[in-house]
């Protein structure tokens, strides 16, 4: 196991190298530069030109890349081109809101999707199943930003149940924190809930038709335990895959939802950083997301082996 994990972590390096090259080239191929973001829209042309020179934006790109990647391997993500704050601290500041949002979205979608998916599988072809299927289809068909706008209009503006926007950290109190994240989490989580619902239903159906379920039934296992324990644990492997993918999706899909709800997370940071051409920050975020992505895949793979003893990590 230990060996496997080390091997997997080492395998991350080429992926991150690819990611770093891709994102570095993308970022530096992007027209425009950070000078205007720093100086503001009314800056004079002379000041802009002077700043550009001073920032060393005129170094050859490969040199800039090597400098950057060497620093990264030393654990230094550099400083924001625009605000000069260390990228690590900028990321740290924006990381928690996104993680909280994604986690909240995942919790909501898990609590909704797993039971519904199981019920739908149990009542295959019946009204309940069809309703669940339609909900799931809507989930994967309604873009999260549309849902977000709709929820905001309804629950924040009309009924005033939730704040319209903004983010209350844990320090502002648990209730405020949850209130500020509820709507964005629903908007973000709905799609993943739908995906998980579909996957739960499909894999539960597959499992429910299996011999060991018949066997368990013949043993006298009660309906609840049959579905909740026997079937579910077997279906979990494929559900775990979707959960892993959803967490990654939620982290990156947060970009749009965060912008709609004004949550200062990684997503809105990358959107605004692109607008400002804050190279180092964009690179930092993408590296971080890629790393989380790879990390979650690793966790999922390890989780498989806990759920299904037939899958051995090696």
């Amino acid at each position, binding site marked *: 196991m230990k060996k496997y994990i080390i091997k997997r972590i080492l395998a991350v390096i080429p992926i991150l190298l690819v990611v770093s090259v891709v994102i570095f080239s993308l970022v530096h191929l992007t027209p425009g530069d950070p000078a205007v973001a720093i100086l503001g829209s009314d800056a004079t042309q002379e000041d802009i030109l002077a700043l550009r020179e001073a920032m060393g934006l005129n170094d050859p790109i490969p040199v800039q890349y090597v400098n950057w990647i060497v620093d990264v391997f030393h654990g230094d993500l550099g400083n924001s081109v625009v605000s000069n704050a260390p990228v690590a601290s900028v990321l740290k500041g924006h990381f928690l809101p996104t993680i909280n949002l994604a986690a909240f979205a995942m919790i909501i979608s898990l609590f909704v999707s797993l039971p519904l998916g199981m019920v739908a599988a149990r009542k295959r*072809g*019946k009204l309940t199943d069809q309703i669940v299927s339609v909900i799931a289809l809507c989930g994967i068909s309604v873009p999260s930003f549309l849902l977000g706008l709709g929820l905001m209009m309804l629950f924040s503006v009309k009924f005033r149940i939730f704040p319209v926007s903004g983010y209350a950290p844990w320090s502002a109190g648990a209730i405020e924190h949850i209130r500020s994240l509820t709507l964005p989490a629903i908007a973000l989580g709905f799609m993943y809930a739908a995906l998980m619902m579909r996957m739960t239903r499909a894999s539960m159906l597959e499992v429910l038709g*299996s*011999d*060991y379920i*018949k*066997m*368990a*039934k*013949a*043993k*006298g*296992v*009660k309906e609840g335990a049959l579905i909740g324990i*026997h079937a579910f*644990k*077997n279906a979990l492997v494929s559900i775990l895959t979707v959960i892993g993918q959803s967490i990654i999706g939620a982290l990156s899909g947060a970009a749009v939802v965060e912008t709609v709800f004004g949550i200062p997370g990684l997503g809105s940071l990358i959107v605004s950083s692109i607008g400002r051409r804050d190279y180092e920050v964009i690179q930092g975020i993408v590296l971080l997301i890629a790393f989380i992505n790879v990390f979650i895949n690793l966790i999922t793979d390890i989780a498989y082996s806990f*759920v*299904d*003893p*037939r899958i051995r990590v090696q």
Partner: protein
Amino acid sequence: MSEKIIELQNLSTSFRTERGLLKAIDGVSFDVHKGEILGVVGESGCGKSVTSQTILRLYDEKYTAVYEGKVLLEGEDILQIPYKKMQDIRGRRISMVFQDALSSLNPVFTVGYQIREAIRIHQKVSKKQANKMAIEMLSLVGIPAPERRVKQYPHELSGGMRQRVMIAISLACKPRLLIADEPTTALDVTIQAQIMDLIVQLNQQLDMGVILITHDLGVVAETCSRVVVMYLGQIVEEANVEDIFDNPKHPYTLGLIQSIPRLEGDRNKELYTIKGTVPLLSQIPTGCRFAKRCPYAKERCNTQMPDLIPVSETQKVRCFRYLEGGGIRYA
């Protein structure tokens, strides 16, 4: 004769399908006594498994299956009791061994868990105690080093071992009736014999009734006392095991027996096969269901359905030709 454990009276099971209700078994009646092994034989698709699963009411009654007739478990009709009560019967009074142990054992739970679960559903015992009992059960079914095995997962065991585990699960609560649905099909020949021996041995040891479902007449000959032959959802013949082999009354039974390969006799002679295949449930003929494949069939066989008529104290047969002729002269 000893007491009857289970008695099927005119049992039918139909499935709801897109084409309407399809009868998978039709008017099946037989009984099993304490300490007895009843063989149920027939080709695949003849309704053996449906019969056994109907006894346990394993089909979804709301959406899939409709039962008719009676299943009397020690005198009580278990088709009439509330569905929930079946959970107390399954595993405790009737249990079942399935064909393919690999797919019938839950791959994500340990062997021990699956046995313990069967025990603890029906008996109030602590986990520790259940574990002890599980280990006992494993040694009962002849698994060496059971303490180690309880911690293992099904995929870590050999095929024979798995089948033994399944038997252990089935017998965990000392049921009155064990239904063994082709318990050896998936196994090597030597293992087959071991498993069959085990079932016979446990049958005597625990004094329970056994319904052995199989398509292998050889197995039947060695283990069963009585045999029911099924074809297309109906019983076509019922007899003591000696009568079945020495004096088969139904052409289908005869065909089955003739198709057993034998060590003695002409090796070059082509093995007998019953021509044609079992028709689909949706295409059940109106007359005798076997008529189309029967070498002796006459006009009447195609239009009228024969009844299952006793021909002796222990033997019943469903065939016009036999009844007419006072016995077909089988060549």
